[in-house]
């Protein structure tokens, strides 16, 4: 973020407390380095993440939103992560209609033992967002075609 010329993406990360948040803790305990672009917000379960939050984060200037949950079958609350998965599928369909590349929303399963994976995934996400650059499309970049399809113009 100190970089003056280069683009430093800002990422909000919703991490479930049982798996991904703990995985991020382990990355810390293991002193694994990753870029500081990510601000974590602890949630009880990835299933708590309201799709509205994701949209709001983009609206407030996030270049990427990260959701971390437990691996399928490992959810502390039995099945919350399955609901998250469904919601993210729908969100990824919605985002392009707002001029936001779906890759800017990333859902990952990271267990409490996967500190290494957390660091890796965050590093990768930051690199991908740097390649994407800032969000350019605004409301006026959206165009509805005659057959009702929404298109984004760059």
């Amino acid at each position: 973020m100190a970089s003056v010329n280069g683009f430093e993406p800002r990422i909000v990360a919703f991490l479930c407390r049982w798996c991904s948040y703990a995985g991020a803790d382990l990355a810390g305990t293991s002193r694994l380095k990753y870029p500081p672009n990510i601000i974590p917000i602890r949630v009880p379960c990835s299933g708590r993440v309201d799709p509205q939050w994701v949209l709001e984060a983009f609206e407030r200037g996030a270049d990427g939103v990260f959701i971390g949950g437990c691996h399928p079958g490992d959810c502390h609350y039995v099945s919350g992560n399955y609901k998250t998965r469904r919601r993210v599928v729908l969100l990824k369909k919605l985002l392009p209609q707002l001029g936001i590349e779906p890759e800017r929303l990333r859902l990952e399963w990271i267990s409490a033992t996967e500190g290494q994976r957390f660091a890796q995934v965050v590093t990768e996400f930051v690199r991908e967002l740097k390649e994407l650059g800032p969000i350019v499309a605004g409301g006026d970049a959206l165009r509805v075609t005659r057959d009702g399809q929404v298109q984004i113009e760059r």
Partner: protein
Amino acid sequence: MSKRSDARNLSTRHPSRVTRRGQRIGVFVCHCGHNIAGVVDVKRVAEELSRYPGVVYATDYEYMCSDPGQDLIKRAIREHRLSGVVVAACSPSMHETTFRRAAEEAGLNPYLVECANIREHCSWVHNPGLEATEKAVRITRTMVEKVKGNMPLEPVEVSHADKCLVVGGGIAGIQAALDVAEAGYEVILAERSPTIGGHMAQLSETFPTLDCSQCILTPKMVEVERHPNIRLLVNAEVEEISGFIGNYRVRIRKRPAYVDPDLCNLCGECEKVCPVRVPNEFDRGLLERGAIYIPFPQAVPSTYTLDEETCLGIKPLICGKCAEVCEPGAIDFDMSEEVIEEEVGAIILATGYDLYETKALPEYSPEDPDVIDPLQFERLLSATGPTRGEIRRPSDGKVPKTVVFIKCAGSRDPELHKPYCSAICCMYTAKHALLYKHAVPDGRAIVFYIDIRAPGKGYEEFIHRVMEEDRVLYIRGKVAKVFREGDKLIVWGVDTLSGQRVEVEADLVVLAMAVVPPEGVEELARTLRLSCLDENGFLKEAHPKLRPLETLAGGIFIAGAAQGPKDIPQAVTQGSGAAAKAISLLSAPVLTHSPEVAEVDEELCSGCRVCAPLCPYGAITVEEVAQVNELLCEGCGTCVAACPSGALSLRNLDDAQVERMVEAALAELEGAREAVEVKGG
């Protein structure tokens, strides 16, 4: 105090819609020695936060978790009349409890204290400098926003029933029942077969000490029957479990035994006249029994029992010969099924194991009477078994002169059978081979193995004794095929150490079959409304290392082989462990539950029912509007995220809070940058 109770009243409903005015937040930035301060400019973080809206006090200190650090927080709460506290330090999993307790001592509700994780999530993963400091500021700001929206909460208190249900009367269930009963609590022990004792009752001797299994087990069985605090239900299956920790309602269905145990004098005349002959489960089909029978002489309860399934007919009565010869008149064909309903505080699942069926391994000729499973071999070894302890093969009663033991039969075979190690086979096979050699000194015992796993106390020494003193031949390799040729069973295998093919002419083959979950455990799991089975069908523990005796459902514990293959000492240890868990629950005056759960704004709820099916705990019921049972709710918030009308919220993590947290995470940090640049310059 009055302020607190006001807030509490408001918090009982929709904290999101309540504005807590005049916020006075204190921020405490920890150096954690060099751990944080070496990377993050902690003074700068405190300074930045002191200018943040709602913050009235911000400071830094070397070790916030130390006693002086905690005193600093307590003093500030009193002196600055703080309405909330953020400790920017390590992960909340480390010291959240420490700081919340300290705040409580200073009169601040613990739910108004949060940790901003600037160590694990910041200083330990980033390089020293501006970026790390900026991130620490952002993280701390998000937590300030959270605390601003937090409401003071009190743990939910709930009373509980003081009985314990133990499901399964094997050694683990017996141990658990006895321990809970000894502590003074009433125990209901439900066993689905006609007797307790489980598989341990079938064993001849136990490794590595060669104690007689029944001799050490039966005193415990008798103790169960005699214990004033234990209500033993045999022929009983748990049909339904509802409720929640401390308050489970269970329905148990008990099949009639048609014999009054108080009148039955065990004379056995009934079985002699019974025209039915079916394989005896206890002797693994090596002997037959009547429809009226006693599983084994020391069965508890000590009574004959009439098996409705195999009897020629009870309703209407077809034969009735048993009742004619019963002198004490113990047989009562009018007995009917009983349904027992009980309220229990804790449940211990000790449902045990079964053996993988030999017919799953057709290459080993499982249909041959002389290819047997390990429990059949136990019965052949047992003094109470079909051969009175003489080893005679089932086909013709001859003493086998060559016995082949095949280990890992169905275990450690991820492609075709079970991927896991069944844990007990190495030891009991060694014991089998030893007992065989003692019974037939001129016989040959040959063990085919993949590896030998003997990690228990005295186990490795036992294996060596079997190999060296008793001259049992161990061949490392798998057996490809077993087939009959006249009087002999031909065993084709390979010795992987020498690379040679091996062919053995055997008289008897014992397959050390994989340990598998018992039939019916899936239905039990479904009854519990829990996806609590692991990939192999065993009951899944809450945490493999730290919560091995608990399930994810509060107050439901696991003991013994229900959780995975276990030997007797492990099953007993777990039985006692699960009992200790149950006792600590039952002995608590009241149970507490986190108040950070979902709640409904009844005015906004349209009764659409989207939420209820999402809840894995069945905590939501919808009639006119949705209602959350705060004792069942675990606070995951999945329903809240799905509510289309915004009627559901999660206490202390509502949408408005998260919105402000997101905003704080993303907001510009002019001040911090300038300050650090000045410092750097």
